[in-house]
């Protein structure tokens, strides 16, 4: 599998480096880079709707006008569910944007189809891609790096950590820190203490895995397989093994944990509101990323929650997942406009602390943890601890197909009681067929 383990050691980053970073290390230069358009140009940027994110990008567009008055940035905002399809059609019909926002796992597909413009080193004021990579956490931009060149830059790299409802724990006589599950066996043991059933109605789940989209299912399944020592993709990315013994163990454990802690038939989570069960108090524990912090804080839960590292099969060999969204530039646009597009991406990403403060997105940039914003951000150290032992969401030209097949396999086991091995064997058959294309 093409996974880049992020061995991030957050404490080793010097404050001086942070100050350099924030004051101009990746900050935009006042002078226009070579090849920048001299006349008026308009560039279009597409991104997926998420309230705080949209507000911040709009703010950045306004600020960019003052720096580069000859460039007009046209925003087009769409739902996260639609953006992939719209980008695909945009590429196909030549109506795509200059700058696209996409889930990092899709960039391999775009790269393989020759749709992406490599990052303009001149715009970023670096001499080589290695120099740029050095500004990021190890593996931080792996999802957008192909053939030694960077094609996409993430504005968020999310860990997946365990969010705990303090209220639910206290009601069960538990301490959300001391009694937090460190392993999946701990999680199973907590199930009967936290799960509440009235008649045939589950009124509170102890914990549940996500079922609202194959994408989220894969986000949980991949790290579980890796916790058992397996991997879903071969190193060269040319084959997949979704029915390996480790994968079967992972799905079996998923099922067993669910039986004791969850109730997949009782959920209000949707793709648009993936944290709804937790927000509504329907589950005592939930896996999500730092970006959910503001949403949870604004709900009835307020600050009455705790975040702990994601449970492990073996805490001595921790493994989690990181996923994110990244900006890329459309290769098909005129050269000068592509320079302007990369220039705007550079401008947007220049202040990682603002991204954290305004959108709760963690850029995988060195030193972000040393900023005042990060130090105030609830449980930031926990999120970073999980990122430090994470692999990126699987990168493959066929990640959508693999995600769909695995998602269906999980649902067959959970909803229909199918045997995990048989279900994953079926998924493997589907995936192999895709790779043969």
């Amino acid at each position, binding site marked *: 599998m093409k996974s880049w383990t992020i061995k991030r050691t957050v404490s080793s980053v010097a404050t001086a480096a942070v100050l350099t970073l924030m004051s101009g290390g990746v900050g935009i230069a006042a002078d226009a880079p070579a090849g920048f358009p001299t006349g008026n140009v308009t560039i279009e940027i597409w991104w997926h709707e998420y309230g705080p994110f949209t507000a911040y990008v709009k703010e950045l567009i306004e600020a960019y006008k003052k720096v580069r008055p000859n460039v007009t940035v046209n925003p087009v905002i769409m739902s996260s569910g639609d953006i992939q*399809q719209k980008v695909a059609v945009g590429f196909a019909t030549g109506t795509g944007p200059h700058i696209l926002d996409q889930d990092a796992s899709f960039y391999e597909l775009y790269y393989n189809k020759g749709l992406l413009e490599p990052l303009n080193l001149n715009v970023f004021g670096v001499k080589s891609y290695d120099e740029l990579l050095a500004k990021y956490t190890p593996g931080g931009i792996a999802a957008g790096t192909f053939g030694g060149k960077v094609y996409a830059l993430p504005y968020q790299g999310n860990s997946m950590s365990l969010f705990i409802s303090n209220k639910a724990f206290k009601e069960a006589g538990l301490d959300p820190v001391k009694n937090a599950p460190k392993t999946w066996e701990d999680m199973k043991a907590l199930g009967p203490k936290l799960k509440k059933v009235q008649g045939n109605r589950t009124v509170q789940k102890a914990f549940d895995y996500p079922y609202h989209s194959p994408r989220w299912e894969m986000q949980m399944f991949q790290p579980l397989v890796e916790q058992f020592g397996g991997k879903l993709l071969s190193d060269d990315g040319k084959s997949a093994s979704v029915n390996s013994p480790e994968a079967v163990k992972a799905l079996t454990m998923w099922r067993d944990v669910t039986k004791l802690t969850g109730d997949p038939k009782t959920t209000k989570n949707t793709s648009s509101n993936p944290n709804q069960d937790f927000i509504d108090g329907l589950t005592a524990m939930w896996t999500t990323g730092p970006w959910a912090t503001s949403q949870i804080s604004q709900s009835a839960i307020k600050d009455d929650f705790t975040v702990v590292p994601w449970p492990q099969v073996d805490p001595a060999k921790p493994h989690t997942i990181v996923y994110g969204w990244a900006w890329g530039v459309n290769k098909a646009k005129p050269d000068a406009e592509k320079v302007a597009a990369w220039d705007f991406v550079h401008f947007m990403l220049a202040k990682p602390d603002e991204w954290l403060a305004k959108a709760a997105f963690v850029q995988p940039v060195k030193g972000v943890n040393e900023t005042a914003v990060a130090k105030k951000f609830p449980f930031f150290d926990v999120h970073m601890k999980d990122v430090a032992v994470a692999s990126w969401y699987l990168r493959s030209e066929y990640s959508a197909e693999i995600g769909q097949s695995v998602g269906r396999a999980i*649902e067959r086991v959970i909803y229909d009681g199918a045997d995990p091995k048989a279900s994953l064997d079926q998924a493997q058959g589907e995936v192999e067929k895709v790779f043969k294309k």
Partner: protein
Amino acid sequence: MSASACAPGPAVKRVRPLSLASKQAMFAYAIIFPTLAILLVFRFLPMLQAFYLSLTQYDLVHPPKFIGFANFVDLVQDPLFLKSARVSLTYVLFSVVPVLPLSLGLAVLFNRSLWLKNLLRSAIFMPVVMPAVVMAVVWTFMYQQDGVINTILGWLGIDPIAWLRSSASALWAVILIGIWRATPYYMIIFLAGLQAIPADYYDAAKMDGAGRWASFWNITLPLLKPTTLLVVVMNVIVAMKVFAVPLIMTGGGPGDATRVLPLFIYQTAFEFFDMGRAAAMSVFLFVGVMLFSFIQVRLFTRGEELR
């Protein structure tokens, strides 16, 4: 009379004036030309293009590569496609059949004098004007464990049903919405059909001693045959194309319990970037709809041909 006046002039070829029928035909062609042109450009040409794409391997980015019937051969052996086709057929069967008696029954009811008839008719017609996306979101809330439907079931002592979260019930939940949405629409069509039946027939039947049921069976139903044909054909076509509701409510799941063919086509084209295969699926869907329509028309018109 002068000589010159009598001399034969140059031969004038007289143009025969167009007959009234020809003028009417020309006028009709002129009227329908814009519509035909729009249909040609925006419907038939894309359909032809889809037929062509079904014979290619096309990823939306690189030029299509001709591969003959490989997509079709592959599809008929693909269990996912066959499962999706089965889901679509189940949806069509169980969402079309109940709509017929329900919409006809409501039409008969509203064809009579009824207290607050117009208000009730408007209320019943509401689902038709509601956008599919809004409807799907509203029904998703209604189907939740603590939603309206399970609450009502709870009053009746029935345990909550995991409507959209169970492979066993999800498709039925989606079918129920299809019925709920289609019934008032076809009720209006049946109502128009009922109002076109002359009252004299019923009066004559009444004088002959026919009761309400006999009048309905021997007058209403036979005279509604063309309307019924229209309703069945339209309903099947609409049901075959159902897309937004399963996409929003279930995404085709759990598993692939609600992955109807149009949803699978969409995923194949725009999530998996396999436009050639998606086009081949569309051709299957098109042929299926045509076949259904043809069979229905033949069945409904067979009696008339025999006469």
